[in-house]
């Protein structure tokens, strides 16, 4: 147990694209034999809802490749049009399926299967009046001190 490497991750973002790094790294680390914990705080809590409904936004994200050269003929303000977020999110999900990239749901399931410990920030849950029942089973609730108990012993600690 004590010679097992440890990975601690803080997940702070709640968009479809930024949901990937914590789950990819946590599941892979677990497969490599790391004991892994992820602490979800602020918008990161969206990643541990029972119903995953994440979106990607082209708004304020000039690094995001757009299909069919849309970035060439779409003015920046166009990305703020109503419905744009849904359209881009559907396109992104389709692209991921086509390329054999796992869905976030699948990666999250794999994390749980590999006994990655997931902790939700109690303060954020209170702050946004989230209902604890809306979050996945197996999730624990805790605070910063809870995170440090594990992070202090970790070999790798990431803020995502």
């Amino acid at each position: 147990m004590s010679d097992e490497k440890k990975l601690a991750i803080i997940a702070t973002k709640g968009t479809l694209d930024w949901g990937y790094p914590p789950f990819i790294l946590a599941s892979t680390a677990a497969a490599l034999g790391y004991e892994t914990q992820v602490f979800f705080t602020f918008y990161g809590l969206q990643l541990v809802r029972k119903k995953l409904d994440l979106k990607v936004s082209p708004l304020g994200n000039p690094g995001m490749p757009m299909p069919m050269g849309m970035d060439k003929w779409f003015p920046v303000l166009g990305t703020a049009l109503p419905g744009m977020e849904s359209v881009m999110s559907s396109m992104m999900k389709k692209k991921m399926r086509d390329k054999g990239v796992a869905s976030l749901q699948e990666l999250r399931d794999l994390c749980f299967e590999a006994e990655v410990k997931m902790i939700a920030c109690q303060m954020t849950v209170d702050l946004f009046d989230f209902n604890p029942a809306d979050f996945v089973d197996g999730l624990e609730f805790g605070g910063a001190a809870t995170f440090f108990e594990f992070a202090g012993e970790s070999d790798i600690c990431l803020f995502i």
Partner: protein
Amino acid sequence: MAAFDQELDATGLNCPLPILRAKKTLSGMEAGQVLRIVATDPGSVKDFEAFSKQTGNELLESGEEAGKFVFLLKKA
């Protein structure tokens, strides 16, 4: 082609799925048994090397066959 005990088709899957599926399959196998993995993700070549180094499951073979990547892993 060397002998193997079980085979995993990871074609069409992208990072990190080939590694995760391989790990899962290995955990149901006995020590010393060999797992053959077929993948199409070019990143899997380096990833299986790294997986082998970190988990102690020996990478007996890593090669290409008909445009696909084929690996033989021996369970530690």
